[in-house]
């Protein structure tokens, strides 16, 4: 078995993930690209587990399991953030978030209100 084949596959997948994160504009597609990168890392871990004799057996596989769990947690929180963003802006385009404008009121939800009832002055001042 030539380990260079899965290694190069992982490198290509990682590059695709980086490209996706930088180029995509939809937040959901951003999450998918992050998944591609995490999978590349997992593939490298599994391949090195199969090729390098480590002191502890199967460490690479254990790490890969941990990374998979981390990815699941990340997608859960990411989905919550995306939905909060969508509720606020009615759009998930990451480069078109109007930080310097007043946010649109979507479906009758007064987006200017915080739990305390105070208005949110930060949004008018923050600028990227």
């Amino acid at each position, binding site marked *: 078995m030539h380990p260079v084949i899965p290694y190069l*596959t992982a490198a290509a*997948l990682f590059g695709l993930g980086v490209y996706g994160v930088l180029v995509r504009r939809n937040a959901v597609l951003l999450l998918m690209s992050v998944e591609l990168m995490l999978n590349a890392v997992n593939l490298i871990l599994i391949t090195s587990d199969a090729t390098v004799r480590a002191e502890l057996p199967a460490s690479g596989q254990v790490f890969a399991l941990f990374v998979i*769990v981390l990815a699941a*947690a990340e997608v859960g929180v990411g989905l919550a953030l995306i939905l909060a963003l969508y509720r606020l802006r009615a759009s998930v385009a990451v480069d078109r978030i109007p930080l310097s404008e007043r946010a649109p009121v979507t479906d009758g939800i007064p987006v200017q209100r915080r739990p305390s009832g105070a208005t949110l002055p930060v949004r008018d001042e923050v600028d990227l």
Partner: protein
Amino acid sequence: MTAADVLLLALGAIAVGAGWRVVITSHLVRAGLWLVVTLGAVAGAYLVLAAELVAWVQVLLYVGAVVVLLLFAVMLTRAPIGASSDLDRPGWTGLLVGGGAALGLGALLLDGYRWQKVDAPAVGSAQLLGGEVFRHWVLPFEVLSVLLLAALIGAIVVSRPAPGDDSGSR
């Protein structure tokens, strides 16, 4: 070239091709479905590399749970059904950085391994992996459970409508 090599090459080609489609397609839903193909091919590569348990966990967690969550996100953000033309921004930087990352990583690994041959690993068992997790990696395992709890609470807090807001019951 052994059978394992051929399998790894084929699965790698499928994974990279489908991954390419994930980052260039203009259909949101199709990106999610191509992601399934990529993750499945990577799971197949895990099987060839004798990581049986990880392969099935990948199928269960990634193809099962993560992709379903992503498709939920697609639906809940009311993504258009057909092709949308504004999914990408013009990205020479993306091409440059992504290509640079892939080429750099590939060159590094290529230099490290050349066309070296390694004996095919013995088929791993869930017993060995479970023993390792609970013998040497117990602390990370427990920390991970705390992290999952934190992620759960965080997701609930973030997605909950504000307390004084009775119209936000969605």
